[in-house]
């Protein structure tokens, strides 16, 4: 049995890659869900090409890839509530703020940096 320290640390998981050409997004999701299920304080950050993971109406039907993005809707069951996206990354890619999950917080670069700074542990995928 894993002993979990009672003194809570906050963990940030940064997603910086587009969703389907590699497995980074899925690997990050697996880590986020396990931290959530151990009641660890975990937040998700989407930045750079990672913002594509939040864009709605994506289908993987034609590319023989499981659409792991559908699992994002389970975040609330894992108590993953802090989901941040970098506004500048959206602007650079001419993407609208229309996401496939609710309660995504769009932050300016400065706010994004400050939010990240509130975390003791950072993992980046």
């Amino acid at each position, binding site marked *: 049995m*894993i002993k*979990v320290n009672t003194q809570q*640390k906050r*963990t940030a998981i940064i997603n910086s890659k587009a969703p389907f050409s590699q*497995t*980074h997004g899925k*690997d990050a999701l697996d880590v986020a869900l*396990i931290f959530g299920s151990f009641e660890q304080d975990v937040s998700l950050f989407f930045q750079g090409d990672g913002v594509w993971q939040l864009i709605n109406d994506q289908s993987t039907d034609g590319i023989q890839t499981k659409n792991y993005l559908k699992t994002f809707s389970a975040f609330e069951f894992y108590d993953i509530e802090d989901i941040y996206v970098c506004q500048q990354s959206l602007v650079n890619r001419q993407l609208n703020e229309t996401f496939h999950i609710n309660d995504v917080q769009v932050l300016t670069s400065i706010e994004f940096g400050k939010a990240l700074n509130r975390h*003791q542990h950072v*993992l980046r995928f």
Partner: protein
Amino acid sequence: MKSIAFMVTTAPFSNLTATAIQIIESALSQNIPVVGIFFYQDGVLNANKNIMIASDEYQALHQWQRLHKTYNLPLHICFTAAEKRGLTDESEMKNIDESFIISGFCELVGLSSKADEIAQL
């Protein structure tokens, strides 16, 4: 002194792994408490004893074995990532080196909870 855990995500044939080993050994040699290493993504390939790297090139596995022996350093590989890459501990086909421990994601939560800092390499 603050304790640290490391997550290694690079394959043994990547020079980034040589850098990771240098950084980890540098922490160990300064008596910084290293609670453990968690191998994830392509990092789990470091545990594959069947990977043959030309003898005039960097032998990452030898270095991991040495760190494990010298410093009693726990080397955890992520089971999910390992299975996906053909690593197995089934007796006949076992290709995981003895220095490594097969662990689950929960070990990562354990390491992260124990360590003051976590560094991803």
